[in-house]
């Protein structure tokens, strides 16, 4: 190893591997990606767990997120302060939850959080409208948006409170054929 500077101690790497779906190499790669975002902010040496956060504006410039209409929501969901400032831990957490090997249940939970724009633990009509607007870049008319939102609610809302609770969402997404293949980001 000689002159190579250590980024993490072995214990840290082990702990990360226990807590995520990543291998050692991937964690190191994640760190380098994280560091690329803000080279002046993030140190190479992470052995003493520095408390550093990279703001949302920098995170969403990653090519993996750049084109995603929900990028802001994703980053906000995984940030500890809810404002989108990600520490390295949050960063790893985000890609771990979105990676290919993470189970459907976990993905469902985070997907729900992401689509819950106003964070009231329900996906209500406003959330749906926002989702739809982002998804179609606002190319649907007002009526169409309303119609689609009504339809979606009608389909998925099991308890009839005209908003989607987590169990509604889970029930709906558990049958979706594309969810797993589409809801993942490869780093």
């Amino acid at each position, binding site marked *: 190893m000689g002159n190579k500077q250590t980024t993490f101690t072995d214990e840290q790497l082990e702990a990360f591997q226990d807590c995520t779906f990543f291998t050692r190499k991937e964690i190191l790669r994640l760190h380098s990606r994280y560091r690329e975002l803000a080279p002046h902010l993030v140190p190479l040496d992470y052995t003493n767990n520095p408390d550093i956060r990279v703001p949302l504006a920098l995170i969403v410039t990653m090519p993996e997120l750049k084109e995603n209409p929900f990028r802001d929501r994703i980053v906000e969901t995984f940030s500890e302060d809810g404002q989108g400032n990600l520490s390295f831990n949050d960063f790893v*957490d985000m890609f771990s939850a979105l990676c290919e090997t993470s189970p459907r249940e976990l993905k469902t939970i985070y997907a729900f959080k992401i689509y819950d724009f106003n964070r009231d633990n329900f996906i209500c009509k406003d959330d749906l409208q926002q989702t739809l607007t982002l*998804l179609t870049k606002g190319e649907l008319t007002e009526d169409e948006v309303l119609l689609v939102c009504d339809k*979606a609610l009608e389909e998925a809302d099991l308890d009839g409170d005209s908003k989607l609770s*987590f169990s509604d*969402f889970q029930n709906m997404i558990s*049958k*979706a054929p594309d969810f797993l293949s*589409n809801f993942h980001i490869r780093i």
Partner: protein
Amino acid sequence: MPRDSLITSEDDIDVGLDLAGEDEVFSSNEGHERERHRGKRRDGDGEKKKRKKRRRKGAHRAEEGEDEVQTRHERREREKRRRAKNDQEAKGRERDEEERVQTTSGKVAKTKKNIRNENTRRRVEEEEVEVEERLEKRKKKHGSAKKEEKKEDEGKQMVKEKEREVKKKKHKKVVETSSEQETSEEEDDKEEDSKDEEMRPECLTPEELEKLKEAVDERKKLIQSLRGKPWPMKKKLVTLRESQEFVEKYEGALGKGKGRKLYAYKVMMTKKWMKFQRDFENFKTACIPWEMKIKEIESHFGSSVASYFIFLRWMYGINMILFGLTFGLVMVPEALMGRPYGSMPRKTVPRSEETSAMDFAVLWDFGGYAQYSVLFYGFYNNQRAIGWLKFRMPLSYFLVGVGTVAYSYMVVIRTMARNANESGVGDDNSFNFSWKMFTSWDYLIGNPETADNKFASITTSFKEAILEEQESHKDDNIHLTRFLRVLANFLVLCCLAGSGYLIYFVVRRSQKFALDGLENHTWWERNEVNMVMSLLGMFCPMLFDVISTLENYHPRVALQWQLGRIFALFLGNLYTFIIALMDEINLKREEEKIVKFNITTWEASLYNGTISENSTAPSITINPADVPRGPCWETMVGQEFVRLIISDTMTTYITLLIGDFLRAVLVRFLNYCWCWDLEAGFPSYSEFDVSGNVLGLIFNQGMIWMGAFYAPCLPALNVLRLHVSMYLQCWAVMCCNVPQERVFKASGSNNFYMAMLLVILFLSTLPAIYTIVTIPPSFDCGPFSGKNRMFDVIHETLESDFPAWFSKVFSYASNPGLVLPFILLMVLAIYYLQSTSKSYRQANVELKKKLQTQNEENKKKNKRAALKAQMDLEEARKAASQAAEEQKNNNASLQGQEADEEENYVSSHRLYHGKNGRNPPPMNGDRQLLASRAPGPRTYHHGNHGASGYLPGFSEPRMCRVPSLQRH
């Protein structure tokens, strides 16, 4: 930090999602907490006699608290700061919540004041009390983090909770807690702890031990499942460290006497095993090739194009294993230990071909030296055991052939099963819009152009869905479409028949050429069969594409038709080829008979001749190249397949270069001097044809499976081909293709491709097995020469290499009396499984139905509740107004107000029902519509006119239930 984690988890429940999973986590955490306490108490118990030591330790700690080492101090400072922050946050949240509760309760109280709705208020009060309690508890906990007394209280509480623990411990100072919250001290204590541990086991009762073990196991399970928990990373890390410490600490205490050592050993081994597993996993993922390439493609083209490359990689893996099998167990042993080249006729180029054996044209056709090498069946000797290892060559050859097929079946079926498990059962269309909304964005996309296309396609799909919803069936001219579709299918059938005939014709012609002698013909005539097959494979799909525009199907349906047609074409071609090949095999066998007869006469003449010339007869040597030999149909079949693969590969690559690259170059550079926009207009850049490429790959694999028995080099060739096409196609797709305009789902078709692969596997092993079982092998080439059938090698091995009883058992086992019942049993098992699966499916459907009705019930109930609330409100208002009337006798103004309110109510009701009426749930159609509409006007009616007394409140539910009863 148990306390911290407990608090955060509670906060999660309050602030974060109210998930079942989290609840469970919470409870389990609490469980841990409890277990911990128990453990600690036990600690105390164990240390009954060591109070002195304890005290000393305490003193030591106090000392340490006062003068610490610099680093430790810092760390602790940080720790404290963090905790303080946490506390603050938590307190802030508490305050928020308190406020919220107050406001809501206030609101509730305000609205309910007049209604005298005792129930709700009581509930609210209860809630308040509950919240109060919780707050109280939390405060207590916070306090206890610092103060000893409160900890005592809590400890007592714990005791209360678990009364089965009867043992009283006066010195139940849970001093450990504070120490555990600070890891630095924990480290310090470790030495002493380990000393304690040695003493502890004797003091533990078996049941306590059992509990401790449970706790440890639970922790271990927690560590295992940690990565799947929806917690923030920090919490995960903390929990991990804590659990690891716990396990570390108490694991040693488990086991007693003799068992203890064993247990420790076991624990150590599991740890080592885990470590090994992790390293292995790391190694395995590091070994997966082309990860970055595929990722790049994914981000450019989305998951559907990438799925092709992942499929290609998977295929590559399978072929690697097949190659390893044939290479390691067949080719290498024969090359190393078998007789060398030139030692016997089958391993020598015949005299007539010697002059041209090294020509490139011949080698390219896999004739000459290539034909008489390990690459083909004919080279192998029928010697039972070769080399100093006594390697059973013919047996190995046979088993590898069988193993290849068996392995392929296993892998394909296993992958299919896994895919089926993974992809949700998206059979019903009940979540059309929600799925579109939540799962249609491909998170892998990272390229602006693709993203634009994706946005556009999502928008169109929404618009289409809306249209479909609004006017489900609007066919302009059904007769014309029908006619066109029939016409299209007719044309396609013509194409298929034509291509089949063409191939048959060409193969027949090539046989004639072969009889004449290949040298007399041009290159085209020699390679006609393969070229024609490749060309057909290239142009027919395009033709089908053109034809399918006639049909006017939805793109997804059109894609399926297209796939089905190409599949039929390829299959037809392949089978025509095989049938033609069978003819050729029969011809060769006729030839073989003649040759065989000739050889006996030749040998006789030779023998006679030598005898007449020289009396010391047997020592004469004939160059093996001069010995006449049979045509060896197996090698011929192998050669055909190898040639087919080669020409197929070449066509693919050339199509790629011309169709994609050249086109892209032309479009790009001619665009500067052309009269219309080439990039946006007619030629444009090509899109990546996922389905066509996948089909090509599948058929290629089918040919490998078919021919691998007769040409052991085929898997090697295929590995090479796949390797090259991985790089070539990756390059081509990145450099000259544009993202698809209509992005299709990848996952839905995944198992579809697998099913195709399975069908091809079956269809391609069928002829191979047929030839192996029915046609006797050539008499003078290959590992089975001289045998009646190829599988006789098994009998031979059984008889000569295994003890007598084994072959006896085998013969008993293989007699029809046993085999038939076994097959019967299998059939019965299959039948049973199928019927159970059918019944499960039925149950599933039933449940789904039930769920739907439940869902409707629920919706109705909610509606009813809303109505009732409205009614109650109305009543209350009336009562209030009446009271006001009595009190103030101010009639006029109040009535006006009431009328206003009434109107509001009416309009709101109208809105409500109007909404429902407009969007009936899709599953029940009209009846549902009726049912949901029916109660509307009636209740409204009641609400308006039957205002006095409680009547409406009572009658309303019944009125509502009537339609629902009718519905059932």
